[in-house]
């Protein structure tokens, strides 16, 4: 099975429809960025849902949340499910995914996503919630490795072991973000080959690539650039070792598109296609 090629979608943009969408098999929808707050809960406006319906005529829709906060000790954010329900009501969704981290503490939005400590307590919490999500929705659910800018907190297992156990105990599979992996290898000073040797690559169903920036010697998970050379070298290697990958997504935030340009965005998708075809 050849993996599909895709990209993220956050804002309506005529150039996206004409230049990017025709190159994509899969479109990753981020519900939180489509939503607006009306009253007590956020909703996705009718116009955005209509856009999704139109996109779904050309590509497979997958949902990628940022707001669930699956690792918050006090509880997850129910709004994610409200938004997912809205999308499921209008378009077929092949699978959904979230980040393995937390953005809320005691219900208060942190403004950034932070990594969980790799402890048994955190593992048990997220695995239990993952099982509940999979009971609630008859859809595959994947969890993504995230970037940690802060020093690693005291851990009971490696990042790869944590992901492996989470998938085994929670019943989910994995979304491997290669750029995040590069960021963490740089920021936390570990070796990517060791990570790839330890993680169960059979569990990886989706791959993300992106390009970002550096600040104070730290690599940031801000999807503002084209993929860098190292990412482009790593992708074929990872893809050749992940037999169950269904999609490779190039992520870019809409704020970066004016500077990046749609042509460069399209070239990234052509690159992904070439990797898929040659792997």
């Amino acid at each position: 099975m050849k993996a599909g090629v895709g990209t993220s979608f956050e804002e309506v943009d005529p150039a996206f429809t004409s230049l990017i969408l025709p190159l994509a098999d899969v479109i990753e929808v981020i519900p939180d960025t489509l939503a607006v707050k009306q009253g007590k809960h956020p909703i996705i406006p009718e116009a955005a849902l209509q856009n999704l319906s139109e996109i779904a005529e050309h590509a497979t829709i997958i949902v990628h949340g940022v707001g669930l906060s699956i690792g918050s000790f006090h509880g997850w954010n129910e709004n994610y499910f409200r938004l997912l329900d809205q999308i499921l009501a209008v378009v077929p969704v092949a699978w959904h995914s979230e980040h393995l981290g937390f953005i809320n503490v005691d219900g208060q939005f942190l403004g950034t996503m932070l990594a969980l400590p790799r402890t048994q307590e955190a593992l048990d919490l997220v695995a239990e919630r993952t099982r509940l999500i999979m009971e609630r929705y008859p859809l595959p659910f994947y969890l993504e490795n995230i970037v940690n800018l802060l020093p690693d907190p005291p851990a009971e297992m490696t990042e790869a072991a944590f992901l492996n156990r989470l998938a085994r105990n929670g019943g989910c599979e994995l979304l491997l973000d290669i750029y995040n992996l590069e960021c963490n290898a740089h920021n936390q000073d570990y070796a990517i080959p060791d990570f790839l040797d330890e993680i169960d690559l059979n569990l990886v169903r989706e791959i993300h690539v992106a390009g970002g920036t550096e600040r104070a010697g730290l690599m940031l998970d801000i999807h503002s650039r084209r993929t860098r050379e190292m990412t482009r070298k790593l992708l074929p290697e990872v893809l050749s070792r992940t037999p169950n990958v269904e999609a490779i997504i190039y992520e870019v935030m809409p704020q970066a598109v004016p500077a990046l340009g749609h042509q460069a965005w399209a070239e990234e998708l052509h690159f992904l296609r070439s990797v898929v075809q040659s792997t």
Partner: protein
Amino acid sequence: MNLETYQRGLQRLITHGYSTSDDSAYLQGLVGTSRLAVAKEVVCFWRAYGLERFCILTAGLLKSMGRFENDIERFISTEKFSPFIEEAGLQFLRFMATDNDLTVAALAQTEIAFHDTRTNIDEEKAVDWPCNPEPVLLAIINRNDISPEMFAISHYRLRVCRALPGGYICELAL
């Protein structure tokens, strides 16, 4: 350090930059580090991006005064900000509406009035200004420099209503 103390400690560090003596050595070790500073910068970056687009006038004035980033940081430390920009934008404007700089406060109140009256053509709001609002608003909209002369003390009342030509009118207050 369990998950609860870890997350509450990180929240305190990200939002306020300090730890307590009860915090673990890990959390206490983050105080003042460049990594914590970068994590806080990332929070400010995302907030600033959204607020620049929602609070165009107030953000424009604060940037021209060179204090926007600092105000974002102060706003974040209030812990009262939503992930949704429609809500966070109004929260930021309400925060700035009580600023010690009366022009900044008046502009934030004016921007709140623009948002409040957007969907109701008959609603009218009035904001008292400590200077003539017209040149300040025009400079921000046209992205021109804001000169100190624009803040010359005088008392104006700015009425905001969708039914008014241009959406507002400035009147010299008696």
